[in-house]
């Protein structure tokens, strides 16, 4: 069926795979009609997809260094775009983003702008140059451009801190989904999730992760788009939601002013016994908060997420795998295209979900109706039972007000298909999609950390004479150790005190952004400057985080720069220190300057050899 080599056959292979997945969905739908239970469907969806990823991981096994670290540098542009999109979109993007918009409205959507705009920086400032450099890891670039093991070591520290902050949240998400779909305890679910993650990456490193991520992207995008389109059509909001929900957004504004947006007092919420993590709608869906401070908060959050995107090693390293510099640039564009398919749908899902619930004229609406009547609805009952939704009749009138309906953000993605009356097969599909999103990101992150430790610390610093077999053995052992550490922390359920996903972006931008871009764009940047910048940036950012985070010191944020935005402090300090120290020290030698000149030219050989 497939003649010729693997790369030429990619469109056919993934086309067949997509077709097969759709057939599987149809089979499940038929099985549901035939009376298969919801629980079995959920198990089959998750188990089937995870087995496919494991099979791809096994087939992509390798014993070559460049295949293990950079997938042999032969990943075509469009496929690398899909893999990056899966790498990028985490369990949080998949499950929590629509919920974030549902509760946070316009203010939350700064994340959407931030998590997409960063790719402009990646394509214009970094990706093509790092590809030309020919490095295996991000610290590989820092170590070679600035010279010396200490600079390399600092970059590894920043990379590990940023990526590890992120990865525990991903393993946590795989655990949540696995435990729900397979009906096992959360602690066990975390380890099941970890084993699935390692099956994808252990044997083939970057090569295996690349091809599983493409497969995971296909599953997650199908799982996200089908419900959005189906709900919109079924409930009569228009057959192409992205172009046709304007009226609903406007109506939400009218309903908000009709019901009134009430922010419940913390004491009331506590007295009513609302479970933790559940929220009611208290912020306008599309209204822009007045004033300069609100605008600054929007912009500063977007800035942190954008600069953070351009500094996150698990994203940057995806562009080391393209066949050429030209392909690296194009690949960034494709990545953002594939990301945009989901990101532009999230606000639509939030809108659909919200209008379905709060419009009293719709059959699905619950606000303004008698509570006794609402409690009869099956899905309401089911979600209240698992403490994902809650009703608190504050004014005691027996009618549900907007501020009396509480739910968890995740419910928007997980329950909206049910609310709209879609068959259970869709909920199973959504579980498989969430699993794919969380697994693909976790794989990328664990691999980024393990590769940096095995290549930059073990091979470049500790044992430069190690042979290929030993290097790859160390790399694989580290994968397991890092994965297990992440799973252990996730199973302790302390992620809520570990902080937000946004922290990973802030850590990365504090320590890595300027050393990376100045390494390409400023020849005068010196080793001492880069080292001082990384240390000062990371230290000042972390210090500010401790100073401002409510659970640590909890001081008032300076200029609205709160714990989600501490990267602004870190990166600014990093820039100033790096420039000042660079100018105070002797300019880099001729060889280094020539190397920078070479990086700026797309043609010719890479700076570092094919195998290094």
């Amino acid at each position, binding site marked *: 069926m497939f003649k010729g080599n693997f790369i030429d056959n990619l469109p056919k292979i993934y086309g067949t795979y997509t077709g097969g997945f759709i057939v599987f969905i149809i089979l499940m739908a038929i099985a549901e009609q035939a009376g298969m239970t919801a629980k079995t469907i959920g198990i089959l969806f998750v188990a089937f997809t995870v087995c496919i990823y494991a099979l791809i991981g096994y087939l992509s096994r390798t014993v070559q260094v460049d295949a293990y670290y950079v997938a042999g540098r032969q990943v075509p542009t469009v496929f690398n775009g899909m893999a990056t999109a899966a790498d990028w979109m985490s369990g949080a993007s998949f499950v929590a983003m629509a919920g974030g918009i549902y509760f946070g409205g316009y203010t939350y*959507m700064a994340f959407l702008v931030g998590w997409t705009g960063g790719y402009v920086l990646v394509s*214009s400032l970094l990706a093509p140059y790092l590809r030309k450099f020919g490095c295996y890891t991000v610290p590989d670039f820092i170590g070679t451009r600035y010279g010396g093991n200490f600079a390399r070591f600092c970059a590894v520290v920043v990379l590990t801190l940023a990526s590890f902050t992120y990865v525990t949240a991903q393993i946590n998400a795989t655990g949540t989904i696995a435990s729900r779909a397979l009906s096992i305890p959360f602690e066990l679910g975390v380890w099941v999730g970890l084993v699935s993650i390692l099956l994808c990456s252990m044997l083939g490193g970057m090569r295996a992760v690349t091809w599983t991520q493409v497969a995971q992207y296909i599953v997650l995008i199908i799982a996200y788009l089908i419900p959005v389109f189906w709900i919109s059509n079924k409930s009569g909001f228009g057959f192409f939601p992205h172009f046709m929900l304007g009226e609903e957004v*406007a109506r939400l504004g009218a309903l908000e002013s009709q019901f009134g947006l009430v922010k419940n007092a913390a004491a009331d919420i506590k007295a009513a016994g609302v479970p933790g993590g559940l929220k009611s709608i208290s912020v306008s869906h599309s209204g*822009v*908060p007045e004033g300069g401070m609100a605008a600054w908060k929007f912009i500063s959050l977007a800035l942190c997420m954008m600069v953070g995107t351009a500094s996150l090693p698990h994203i940057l390293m995806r562009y080391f795998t393209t066949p050429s510099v030209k392909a690296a640039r194009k690949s960034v564009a494709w990545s953002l295209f594939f990301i945009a398919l989901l990101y*532009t749908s999230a606000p*639509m899902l939030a809108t659909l979900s919200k209008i379905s619930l709060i419009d009293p004229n719709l059959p699905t609406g619950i606000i303004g109706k008698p509570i006794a009547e609402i409690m009869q609805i099956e899905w309401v009952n089911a979600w209240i039972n698992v403490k994902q939704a809650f009703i608190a009749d504050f004014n005691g009138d027996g009618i549900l007000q907007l501020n009396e309906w509480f739910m968890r953000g995740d419910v928007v993605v997980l329950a909206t298909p049910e609310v709209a009356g879609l068959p259970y097969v869709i909920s199973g599909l959504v579980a498989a999609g969430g699993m794919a999103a969380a697994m693909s990101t976790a794989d990328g992150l664990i691999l980024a950390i393990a590769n940096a430790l095995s290549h930059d610390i073990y091979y470049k610093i500790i044992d430069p004479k190690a042979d290929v077999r030993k290097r790859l053995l160390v790399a694989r052992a580290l994968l397991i150790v890092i994965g297990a550490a992440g799973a252990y922390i996730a199973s302790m359920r302390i992620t809520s005190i570990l902080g937000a996903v946004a922290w990973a972006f802030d850590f990365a931008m504090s320590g890595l952004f300027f050393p990376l871009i100045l390494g390409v764009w400023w020849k005068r940047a010196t080793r001492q400057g880069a080292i001082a910048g990384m240390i000062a940036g990371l230290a000042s950012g972390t210090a500010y985080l401790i100073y401002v985070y409510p659970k640590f010191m909890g001081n008032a944020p300076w200029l609205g720069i709160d714990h989600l935005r501490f990267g602004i402090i870190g990166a600014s300090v990093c820039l100033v220190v790096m420039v000042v120290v660079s100018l105070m020290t002797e300019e880099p030698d001729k060889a280094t300057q020539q190397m920078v000149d070479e990086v700026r030219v797309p043609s010719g050989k890479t700076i570092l050899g094919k195998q290094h």
Partner: protein
Amino acid sequence: MSNKEKHWEKTKGLMIITLIIWFVFGYLIFMFGSDLNTSSFMGYPLAYYMCAQGSIIAFVVLIFWFANRQEKIDEEFGFTEKEDD
């Protein structure tokens, strides 16, 4: 100025233009969010539309445009990569 230097000058110019457009869609328009929201696009309040779809689409188009322009610059100075590089 050598060929390499001229190529880098043009590359820098393109980078600056790209980042200016990025700044407009990523930041500038959101400084005037409440003013934007008084108008609408396809029925959506404009500021809402821009962060839900508008700016994201603009970024995608911008990166494709940037990649094509940069390829032209590389071609002009003879720095196009050979297939077997």
